[in-house]
């Protein structure tokens, strides 16, 4: 039997780094141009005019950005952008007038003609929401010099959906909450967050059955509080959720070591032996492996390694690395091959 106490020493108090639980964070700003119809009601011509205006502003203020119209991207390129969170599926469905511009390092991007004319996004690691906000804010301030944003003193930035009006800001963190799930406490945590008017969504999947137990937690209200208050509040609450997940992991190790060991062992053996693997399945097993890596229970495996696998096994990245366009069935086969190779030498400690 595994001796978990010895491999995961609580006395050494290697406080699981917050980044082990908070994976990444982002701040999004919704912006629209005066006297233009919102994208959903605009004609193709309207949207193309807006795209041209916004791309012109981006090129003047951020010449190093990569700029692309959706129509010019093939399916693989679209998948890759979505997997990197630089674009959304909704944007990729906007064949006429949709566009995306992003910094070469992927730290900030603008989606054009998604639900709003502009969706500016800043990204940062862990819970560094202020950094994400600063990145989005700086780009927004630069673009504002060239773009007549729709804004009123009462409602602030006007958006296509009234649920975003005001700051147009949504600040969110991706939290890996498998410990709370294994202890059966995730539903209570999600309910608590919703009572505090935070939006909780699975990164893939729906509601409390988030695929891989990766949740995006973000603010619901955009009117009333200013940007810094909203970002600070989301960060405070997410920090508390991270603390709860940390406590859950400590209790798992102390009180339910068999449940934990079983989950890790099953996941690793499927990853090492499966011949067909869908994206959703792979995410479930990699999620368990990620927990094992955070707890130091898997040999030679760091959390960052698992995060890399989670990105690379997705359809766009998988096909890009192989240099091939594959059918979904072929993808499942190649994904299983890819993951088998990457995890072949891993062992559970004990």
């Amino acid at each position, binding site marked *: 039997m595994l001796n978990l106490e010895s491999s995961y020493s609580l006395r050494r108090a290697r406080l699981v780094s917050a980044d082990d639980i908070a994976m990444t964070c982002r701040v999004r700003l919704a912006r629209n141009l005066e006297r233009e119809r*919102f994208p959903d009601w605009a004609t193709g011509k309207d949207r193309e005019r807006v795209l041209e205006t916004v791309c012109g502003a981006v090129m003047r203020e951020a010449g190093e950005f990569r700029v692309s119209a959706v129509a010019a991207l093939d399916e693989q390129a679209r998948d890759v952008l979505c997997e990197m969170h630089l674009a959304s599926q909704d944007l990729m469905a906007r064949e006429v007038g949709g566009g995306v511009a992003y910094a070469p390092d992927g730290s900030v991007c603008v989606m054009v003609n998604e639900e709003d004319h502009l969706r500016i996004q800043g990204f940062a690691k862990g819970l560094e929401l202020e950094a994400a906000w600063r990145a989005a804010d700086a780009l927004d301030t630069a673009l504002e010099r060239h773009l007549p944003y729709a804004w*009123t*003193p009462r409602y602030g930035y006007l958006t296509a959906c009234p649920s975003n009006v*005001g700051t147009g*800001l949504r600040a969110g963190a991706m939290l890996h909450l498998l410990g709370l799930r294994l202890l059966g406490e995730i539903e209570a945590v999600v309910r608590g967050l919703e009572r505090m*008017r935070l939006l909780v969504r699975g990164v893939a999947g729906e509601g409390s059955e988030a695929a891989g137990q990766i949740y995006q937690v973000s603010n619901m209200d955009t009117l*009333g509080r200013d*940007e810094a208050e909203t970002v600070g509040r989301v960060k405070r609450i997410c920090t508390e959720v991270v603390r709860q997940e940390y406590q859950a992991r400590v209790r798992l190790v102390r009180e339910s070591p068999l449940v934990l060991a079983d989950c890790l062992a099953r996941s690793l053996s499927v990853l090492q032996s499966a011949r067909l693997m869908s994206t959703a399945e792979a995410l479930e097993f990699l999620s368990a492996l990620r927990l094992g890596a955070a707890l130091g229970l898997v040999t030679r495996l760091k959390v960052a390694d698992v995060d890399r696998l989670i990105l690379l096994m997705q359809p766009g990245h998988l096909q890009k690395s192989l240099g091939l366009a594959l059918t979904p069935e072929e993808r499942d086969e190649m994904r299983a091959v890819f993951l088998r190779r990457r995890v072949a030498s891993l062992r559970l400690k004990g």
Partner: protein
Amino acid sequence: MKCELCQKAEAETAIHRKVGAEEQELYVCKACASAGAGPEAGATPEVEQQAAEGCQAVGGVAAFPLMGMILDAAFEIVGRAAVAAGEASCPVCGITRAEYRKASRLGCPACYEAFSEELEAAILDLHRSLQHNGKTPERCQRSRQLAQLERALAEAVQAQRYEEAIALRDQLRRLGGGGAC
């Protein structure tokens, strides 16, 4: 406190209305109460506080799918008379109230003005606030200043602080007429 719907008159009574599966309580003036659901008495301020904090009407996963229902609720209260008067539309983009309700998406920035009454109720439901406090584009700084002065002036007049009100009025005059935003 001020009426939670019109933000103008003093709130005198509580009304209850259903938003999705949740029942919500609002403190409103007489006019808004008679326009909407029947008034019900007896709620305490603490109850209202709890309702505000524990409000799950737009909670969680279903927040955006619920938009339609929230808009419907807002229309029920504010929109009856307007609907009876005929199909309103936005003068700039031309979308009608029915179209925007169906899609839960507005047509253009001017729709906020065109459908201001029912949007006000929906926005209050969504955000529990009706006043932006945050970033202002550089070219809109002046109109924000004007709006702040106008709010301060209205408050001063209502509180009968006339000297302050006169000073505010003079400031407003110096800044001149409406801004670009």
